[in-house]
């Protein structure tokens, strides 16, 4: 066998199927949706869908890194809330505060992420419980800081710009989401940081032997998660203005569902931002479908649950038949 023979990528292998699975599901779902309502095949509507998904999607990009690293970040819902509140507060209704507000929001998001990262990396504790605790802390802080009413006012032009449609078709916010995904993919596949995340996530012991700075990687990954949650908060603010002190409540679960749908599971070292993007869309299309079909709220909850289970079962199945010897 020659070097080039080894380096050649096979056209279709089972494990490529794993990566493609969520895209295939997305395609099938889209076609199915197209039968239900033609709207799903219109660019305009799809743009809208991506825009709807932007806050959750942008947040999910960051969480993907943490999950590749075998962690989880349940504090993103609280960070999104905090960001929306803080951003509006700093804006204070003035256009000149816009960039300052965005800067401050990203900084606070990253800061919470930093706290998560430091505690998890140095404390070596369960990220599940720790970030859960952190979400309570952040929620408490926001409530203490605002006294229960969100007192910010968004800058003029901010919402108008982000809610505009470029060429009357593609919403700006949808583009922001796509940019976040592209940045995420770049981070994940082209940078040392991204590689380190995969290595540490796949096997922390091996990573140590290979001289990978696990602590640094962990801290940065949680910072990234916090940062993207901050951006998600700004996106939420752009979508819906100041709406209460806890607009991101429960969002962490949707984010988690989307990331898992994409195939980034808790096993670590698997999945990626691209799949998360597809996962977010699958989730939103499915829920919209349920909505359009006029299914009651209760049925939608059940559907969401079944989708999560089915998607994960499919990934597990493909993973097993994909030549993976680990049980």
């Amino acid at each position, binding site marked *: 066998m020659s070097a080039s023979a080894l380096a050649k990528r096979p056209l279709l292998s089972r494990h490529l199927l794993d990566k493609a699975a969520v895209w295939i599901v997305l395609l099938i779902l889209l076609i199915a949706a197209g039968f239900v309502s033609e709207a799903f095949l219109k660019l305009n509507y799809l743009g809208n869908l991506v825009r709807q998904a932007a806050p959750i999607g942008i947040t999910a990009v960051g969480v993907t890194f943490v999950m590749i690293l075998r962690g989880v970040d349940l504090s993103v819902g609280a960070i999104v809330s905090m960001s929306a509140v803080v951003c509006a507060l700093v804006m204070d209704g003035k256009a000149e505060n816009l960039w300052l507000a965005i800067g401050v929001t990203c900084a606070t998001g990253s800061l919470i992420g930093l706290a998560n990262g430091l505690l998890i990396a140095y404390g070596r504790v369960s990220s599940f*419980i720790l970030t859960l605790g952190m979400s309570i*802390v952040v929620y408490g802080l926001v*409530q203490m800081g605002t*006294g229960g009413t969100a007192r910010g006012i968004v800058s003029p032009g901010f919402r108008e710009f982000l809610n505009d449609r470029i060429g009357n078709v593609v919403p700006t916010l949808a583009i922001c989401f796509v940019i976040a995904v592209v940045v995420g993919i770049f981070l994940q596949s082209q940078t040392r940081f991204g590689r380190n995340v995969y290595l540490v996530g796949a096997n922390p012991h091996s990573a140590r032997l290979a001289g990978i700075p696990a602590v640094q990687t962990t801290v940065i990954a949680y910072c990234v998660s916090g940062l993207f949650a901050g951006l998600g908060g700004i996106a939420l603010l752009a979508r819906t203005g100041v709406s209460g002190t806890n607009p991101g409540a429960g969002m962490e679960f949707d984010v988690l569902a989307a990331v*898992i749908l994409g195939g980034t599971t*808790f096993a670590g070292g698997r999945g990626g931002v691209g799949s998360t993007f597809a996962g977010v869309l699958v989730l939103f299309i499915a829920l919209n479908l349920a909505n359009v079909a006029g299914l009651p709220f209760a049925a939608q909850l059940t*559907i969401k649950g079944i989708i999560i*289970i089915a998607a994960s079962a499919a990934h597990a199945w493909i993973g*097993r038949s994909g030549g993976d010897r680990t049980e």
Partner: protein
Amino acid sequence: MNRAQLVIPFFSRLPPIVWALLLTVAFGALYNPQFRTVDNAMNVLEQSATLAFLALGQAFVIAGGLIDLSVGQLVGLVTVVACMGFEAFPGWGLPVILGCLLLGAVVGAINGTLINRLRMPPLILTFGMLSVLQGCIFMLTDRSVGSSIPAIDFIAHGRITGIPASLILVVIATVIAFYCLQRSTFGWHLLAMGNSASAARKAGLNVRGLALNAYVISGLFAGIAGLVLAGRLGTGFPNAGVGLELDSIVAVVLGGTPLKGGRVNVVAILAAVLFLGTISNLLNLMQVPTFTQILIKGIIVILAILLERPRWAAAPQ
């Protein structure tokens, strides 16, 4: 050997959470006159009963290296079904109660079976199940329905010679859980599975059976918790179980059980439940502003998990 020599090792062997509980109680008793009343103590014990059952059930699952996120909504479902049942079939209290316990066990069995069959991560499966169950609840009702019956009320609120009936039940459940998890072969196998599922399988343990049983037990305990909650609320409130799954996991982890499983201390878990209840009670009594209370609780969760750093988290060689 003098007494101190006997006592000191005993105390030094106590799990940290027990210490935390003792210190909290001591602090509360010293600084807050309302806290140290017997009545208040009984209140706290009574309030903790639901979570205690739930945490005990969760302990089985986590000990085996699994997790059950569906218990919170299962509690909600059982509460709703129980109250609907009590109202729809007056005089048929016992069958309804048994039916509810069965419901809990069946949902647990579904969890276990799906995890075994689909071979998927328990965290995700039960997370999906959480959503499914929530959907089921809202398909049944979107508001408070039905009412509880005196027998159930008594379990939730009643006192036997001043001691809450729920406390007695919790103690019995704890003893049973202690025997099952920390003494019996079943528990031993479960812990072995928690330490290494593949090794347990190779040793010939029926890991699928173990997982199934753990989930059935967890579901059963959630059923009990749901009934107690029905008694406490007196009605089937559809959102009654929201967030309880996380509380139960927090309690189990505070009780020193690593999320990876493989170790468990039932008494410490009970202490953790009481600790959470006591803290909440004490903060309320000390007039800490509510938002500050939330912050403090978050910090406690973080501190607790940092302090309870399990042995397995030590650096690999």
